[in-house]
């Protein structure tokens, strides 16, 4: 690398030297980033997205500082990745942490306002035995009104006035077609004002007990009454028998004295309740220990087997004398090139006890219960995960192998070291320095490898008769799924609390492991 600007005693970055194109590239980029950021800040102000506004403002200040400052050189390289990391990954963590303290899940899916609206909406029911009427939607001095024909007589009413006869209206069959002093709205106009039309309740008579006329589709109207009345002041619903449902802000439900509730409830912050439930739920404590042991065994064995096979392949085929190794390597990547969920489906078929390829063809008709026996199912999972995972390790180690200087192995050859010794005393330790963190991250990935377990065995074979659908091959995260989403009843709050707890476990273990690799790095 030679440079013409060696004369200057202090090196000036080309991005600062305005005689260089680098300066202009940087300037234009920074202008665009600032324009983009400022636009985002203004738009989030307009949309009242305060959190995003704060994020953009802080980011913009940091970006400007980092790239216009002469210092903070590492930050110049770290920042782009970090911004994406914070926006998409740290946000997910924060959101999950928040959900862990709420009762979000089936039955508590939305805020309180929509819950009240929905309760009122489902309580507003057609009065049984009443007739339906073809309805005409009118605009009377800017107010929506309904016109129907009841017993051959045209009747009109709106939000203020109950239905009353309108002798001057023109009737065609069952329907009012023209009303003096009011406009009959056509389909397009009705669609424009559909909220008003849907919200309109026209009292049948002066007596509220007679119910009201409403329509859902502007062609047919019916008589309806509400089974519940909402008192906004007291925040209660009262049904027709006088039973009162009070809003319970701690549970996010309307609850009556006798314990009955109204659906739906709403989302509230419940504090540590989800964490408490996790530790007191007897269904979890039973299989927890065996599942914990299996989770560790699965994660560790998965890493070891995939790494071992990947490494062997990488080393063996890192040999130019092997003709056709380009093709071989491409074939080794095949399992990686197919979608993982497809592979799990296929393997489930292959391992089928009576009809699978492995028992029927490969093993010549033996009766091995691969997925139905606890231990064999565990073995199957490890084997399938080996198939799925070794190409990754193969790629990674092939890449990392290129960084090992040839001189070292050459020197060893001179020293008379055999190939195995060369491998274990030189290649492997050097390789581990760069690959060890990946092994840890692969451990963590497998620790939470929900999809493999879910698709291959679904956690089964189940422990017979347990009060929760948990099986012998369930790892912690699939156990979380089985409990928190049992039978499709989704308890996101509980699932979030459990995921966070698992994160602490796996994070701690990984942190300890990572400290070890640092030592390894320092030794080398």
């Amino acid at each position: 690398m030679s440079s013409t600007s060696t004369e200057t005693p202090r090196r000036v970055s080309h991005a600062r030297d305005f005689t260089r194109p680098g300066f202009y590239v940087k300037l234009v980029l920074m202008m665009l980033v600032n324009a983009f950021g400022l636009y985002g800040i203004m738009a989030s102000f307009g949309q009242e997205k305060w959190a995003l506004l704060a994020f953009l403002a802080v980011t913009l200040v940091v970006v400007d500082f980092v790239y216009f400052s002469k210092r903070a050189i590492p930050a110049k390289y770290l920042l782009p990745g970090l911004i994406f990391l914070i926006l998409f990954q740290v946000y997910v963590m924060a959101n999950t942490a928040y959900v862990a303290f709420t009762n979000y899940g089936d039955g508590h899916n939305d805020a309180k306002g929509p819950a009240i609206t929905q309760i009122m909406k489902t309580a507003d029911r057609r009065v049984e035995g009443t007739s339906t009427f073809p309805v005409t939607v009118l605009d009377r001095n800017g107010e929506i009104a309904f016109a129907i024909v009841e017993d051959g007589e045209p009747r009109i009413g709106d939000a203020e006035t109950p239905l009353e006869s309108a002798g001057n209206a023109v009737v065609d069959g069952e329907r009012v077609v023209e009303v003096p002093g009011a406009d009959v709205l056509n389909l397009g106009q009705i669609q424009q004002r559909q909220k008003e039309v849907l919200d309109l309740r026209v009292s049948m008579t002066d007596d509220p007990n007679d119910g009201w006329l409403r329509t859902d589709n502007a062609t047919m109207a019916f008589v309806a009454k509400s089974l519940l009345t909402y008192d906004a002041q007291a925040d209660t619903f009262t049904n027709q028998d006088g039973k009162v449902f009070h809003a319970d802000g701690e549970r996010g439900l309307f609850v009556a004295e006798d314990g009955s509730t109204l659906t739906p409830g709403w989302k509230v912050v419940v504090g540590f309740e989800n964490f408490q439930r996790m530790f007191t739920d007897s269904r979890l404590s039973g299989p927890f220990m065996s599942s914990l042991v299996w989770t560790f065994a699965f994660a560790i064995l998965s890493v070891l087997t995939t790494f071992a096979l990947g490494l062997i392949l990488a080393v063996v085929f890192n040999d130019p004398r092997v003709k056709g190794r380009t093709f071989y390597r491409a074939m080794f990547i095949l399992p990686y090139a197919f979608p993982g969920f497809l592979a799990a489906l296929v393997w489930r078929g292959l391992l089928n006890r009576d009809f699978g390829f492995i028992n029927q063809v490969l093993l010549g008709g033996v009766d091995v219960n691969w997925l139905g026996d606890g231990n064999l199912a565990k073995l199957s999972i490890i084997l399938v995960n080996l198939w799925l995972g070794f190409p990754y390790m193969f790629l990674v180690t092939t890449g990392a192998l290129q960084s090992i200087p040839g001189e070292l192995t050459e020197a060893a050859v001179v020293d008379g070291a055999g190939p195995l010794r060369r491998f274990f005393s030189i290649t492997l330790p050097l390789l581990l320095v760069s690959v060890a963190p990946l092994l840890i991250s692969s451990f963590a990935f497998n620790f939470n490898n929900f999809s493999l377990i879910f698709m291959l065995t679904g956690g089964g074979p189940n422990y017979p008769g347990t009060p929760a659908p948990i099986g012998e091959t369930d790892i912690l995260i699939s156990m979380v799924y089985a409990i928190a989403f049992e039978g499709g009843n989704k308890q996101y709050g509980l699932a979030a609390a459990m995921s966070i707890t698992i994160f602490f476990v796996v994070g701690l273990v990984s942190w300890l492991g990572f400290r070890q690799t640092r030592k390894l790095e320092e030794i080398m």
Partner: protein
Amino acid sequence: MTAKLANGDNDVRLRGGRWWAQVGWKHVFALLMIVYCVFPLLYVLSASLNPTGTLTGSVNLFSAFTADHYAELMASDFPKWMLNSFIVSTSTAVGTVVMAAAAAYAFSRFRFKGRRGGLTALLIIQMFPQMLAFVAIFLLVLTLGKVFPFLGIGSNITLICVYLGGALGANTFLMYGFFNTIPMEIDEAAQIDGATHAQIFWGIVMRLVTPILAVVGLLSFVGSYGEFILARIILARPENYTLAVGLYVWGSDERNAPWALFAAGAVVAAIPIILLFMYLQKYIVSGLTAGGVKG
């Protein structure tokens, strides 16, 4: 680069027993491995060529043959999905390589406060269970879409951004380890010549780490190519789907799944990955580093 071999032997023609001991067995091993890699996929290939039937119901592979499903595949939305996948995965791979390499360069070449902590944090953050990510990401994307309309639901750019959220992490580590093997003397020599940090990064270091750039690029390409959990939430409509989402949709209906079409799609989808790997191989095993160190 073929003159010197990793194991120090010179490239001389080996014969007979010695050939078998040193090279021949590797071919046998390769063939065995290929059988292991390929045989589950024969099911998929067989199902894609079978006019009727199921994915895994029969062990009689290739009992019937038709290419109809491939024709049907090309007439479906599949080519569109493939194009989307190329756009998304290529952008993700390029972005990931650049950002991860930059971060690895910072961690490897500079000593700054919080370096160790930062490295550890990167590793640990990736371990967060993504079980509820689909809820969080959906809310985030709704908000982003209100502010930046091109970053909303149904946009490829959104998906690329979400994938780039994972650009650091394991990739940074892989590169970091590789960067560390490049002697600092090279940087120092360039600095004396008056090169700036940016010139050293783009001009020298990035060239020497080509193998790992290719590996990370491939890993990132394959990762985003096969991802469907977040993609199906963000892309929302079939015309925006990537391959993985499209295949997932076809395969998700247990009763009515068009298995043959699904299998044909999986076969075709695997081809670009294999081709990409064949192409990148020469970079991955280029051994440029060694040359650089020596040079």
